[in-house]
């Protein structure tokens, strides 16, 4: 697989972890990964948003255990640290959806430096998703 696109919409810790792990694995094998953060997920592309991610709902009580075991497995257990590692791989691009940014207050001034920028869906779908070998939606 030479290229992969991931679209993420949720910002809770456990729901965002899986697609980021998939991206980390794919990038380690040299796959070009482009990730579009839509809806609530766009908040993860700010320092404050990434730091505030937590497990919610029925799994909230398990957060401490999950983070501990994620670290034991060898992964960073902080979302922003994972985003930094993805960027450092040289194979992953992080994009904020312009509509989601407008809704949730994410803009160029508070976007983390690891993100490529704020983009529209039309560009992402036609220039990235349509040309990728594989697409995943979370």
């Amino acid at each position, binding site marked *: 697989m030479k290229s992969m696109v991931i679209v993420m919409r949720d910002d809770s810790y456990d729901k965002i972890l899986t697609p980021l*792990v998939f991206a*980390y*694995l794919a990038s*380690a*094998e040299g796959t070009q990964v482009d990730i579009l953060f839509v809806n609530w997920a766009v908040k993860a592309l700010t320092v404050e948003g990434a730091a505030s991610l937590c497990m919610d709902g029925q799994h909230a009580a398990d957060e401490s255990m999950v983070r501990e075991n994620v670290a*034991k*497995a*060898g*992964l960073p257990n902080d979302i922003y640290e994972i985003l930094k590692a993805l960027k450092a791989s040289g194979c992953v691009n992080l994009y904020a959806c312009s509509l989601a940014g407008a809704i949730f207050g994410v803009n160029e001034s508070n976007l983390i430096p690891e993100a490529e920028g704020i983009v529209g869906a039309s560009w992402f779908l036609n220039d990235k998703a349509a040309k990728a070998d594989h697409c995943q939606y979370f």
Partner: protein
Amino acid sequence: MSEATVTSTLDTSGKCCPMPIVETNKAMKSLTIGDVLEIIATDTGTKKDIPSWCDRTGQTLLSMTEENGAIHYCVRKDR
């Protein structure tokens, strides 16, 4: 199969998917063609992941043995 001379050893004991593959990729890049990497893993998922990774990347899995809960793979860098 003849005994291979291990050039480098990567111990991923205690780590789980995706880290054994992530670290194997990284370690292999630092080796030269003909070198042999020994990978030690305790994640049972590697029994499928590492042979599959070798197939995809064109490396040769020389051996896979299991002892005391640890799996040892010897992989020769071929490209």
